[in-house]
């Protein structure tokens, strides 16, 4: 799912890094100052959620949930994803150092798009939110896979085969992620629906 160091040519790595940096700045400006520590904590929660492995055939896949990050955080999602990726790279070396920009784009852009889709179409009722949330979960992975393939394709014609394989490998993941995102949204609808209304307008409990 991640691009490692050494795949993208330096120009592409620097270019995607610059775009990611600009998007991060935009995303943190869209977040109210009060909410910044919350974005950090939510990023940590998604980081940990990504450590959950779901069985798939003979192996298992770990959750990515870009669509759900977008649905819950709105414009702050990009910032949260960059935080998560930096920490993943620092702690486990997933995603590398020079490829951080590319990885931020391939997770962050679908998250922003899915966030928008979810806020526009979510409507009322558990069932509808579940369906829209599930679609966002699937779309998020499709978007990530397409951007991954695009970045590989831009890295040189020799990577075309790898790009095709990466696209194919994501197909089963799309269904798993869509289903799990739908179930997560349903759970949140029942347990804490205000988490789905708009990012970070939760009323704090007054003592």
């Amino acid at each position, binding site marked *: 799912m991640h691009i*490692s160091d050494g795949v993208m040519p330096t120009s592409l790595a620097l270019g995607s890094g610059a775009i990611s940096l600009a998007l991060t700045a935009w995303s943190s400006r869209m977040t109210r100052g009060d909410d910044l520590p919350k974005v950090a904590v939510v990023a940590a929660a998604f980081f940990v959620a990504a450590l959950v492995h*779901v069985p798939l055939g003979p192996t298992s896949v770990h959750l990515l949930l870009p669509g759900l990050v977008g649905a819950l955080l709105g414009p702050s999602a990009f910032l949260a994803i960059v935080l998560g990726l930096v920490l993943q790279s620092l702690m486990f070396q997933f995603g590398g150092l020079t490829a951080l920009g590319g990885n931020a784009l391939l997770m962050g852009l679908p998250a922003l798009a899915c966030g928008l889709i979810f806020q526009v179409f979510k409507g009322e009722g558990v069932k509808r939110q579940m369906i829209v949330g599930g679609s966002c979960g699937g779309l998020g992975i499709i978007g990530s896979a397409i951007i991954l393939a695009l970045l590989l394709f831009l890295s040189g014609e020799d990577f075309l085969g790898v790009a095709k394989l990466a696209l194919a490998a994501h197909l089963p993941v799309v269904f798993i992620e869509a289903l799990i995102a739908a*179930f997560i949204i349903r759970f949140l609808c029942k347990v804490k629906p205000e988490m789905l209304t708009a990012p970070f307008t939760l009323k704090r409990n007054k003592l």
Partner: protein
Amino acid sequence: MSNPTLHLPWPILGLILGLLVVCLWLAVVSVRKMADALERQPDGMLPLIGCDAPARSPLHSWDPRFKLVAILIFAFLVVSLKQPVMVVAALAVAIIILAFTRLPWSRSLRRIMAMNGFLAMFLIVMPLTSVVQPGDSLIVFGTFESWPLNLRGMKLALIIIGKAWTVALMMEPLLATAPLGATLEGLSRIGIPQRVSELLLIAHRYIHVFFGELQRMRSGMEARAFKSDHRLDTLKDYGNFVGMLLVRSFERTHRVYDAMQARGYAGRMPGHFQFRGQASDWLKALLLAAIGIGLLLADRLTGGGA
């Protein structure tokens, strides 16, 4: 076709395919084992970044600002290399630097193991799918003329693996030779917004808290006879599991934020790291950058620009 081609008989293809299947099976099993091990670790076993140990090596006493900039520049120079010999040289430089830090090797090995699944895919796929250019050496099995193994593709894959390993080996010298707070403060001193490094520090702390929560919930599920298999109900359980994790962390977020405000948090933690910027810091940074530039120059001058 002007490509030098090596024809090999069928049985060798069978042998290689057999080896591939075994490798793939081993990879699948190891991924599964790793996933299991990760979820069953005792509390707080996620790797911690940074260290508070006193300076033991030239890298420990290196000002984090200079260390960050120099290692970033070195990493970008390394990924620009195009010749196998130079990539091996860069890898050797990284290993020497790592030896200088006198850090345990296990952490660096774990970083490399984490990437190997992705890199192995390159090693298998690239020889089969690289575009055949004039001058490429090919290996053809039996009558499989349309699917030759391209040795140039294999070379590309090996170069990528070498670069990725080099950068991975530089991460421990970068991170484990100073407290995380100092590294992040250094990050904000060199132009990354203060907010971002502040958030990284908070997120890093709460990852460990939430991981403990994840494990507690997991053992709770197992005590209630949860078994991970391929039914839809399992996915539903996973959905509820992650949903609960999110709800709990959202609620904790508010408590944490209130507590931080009650202690006077106003957008940044008080920093207590001293940055000096002595001549030796400059010297180390220039040395590392010079090694990187030297490698790149040698790479290009010996024909890597082609």
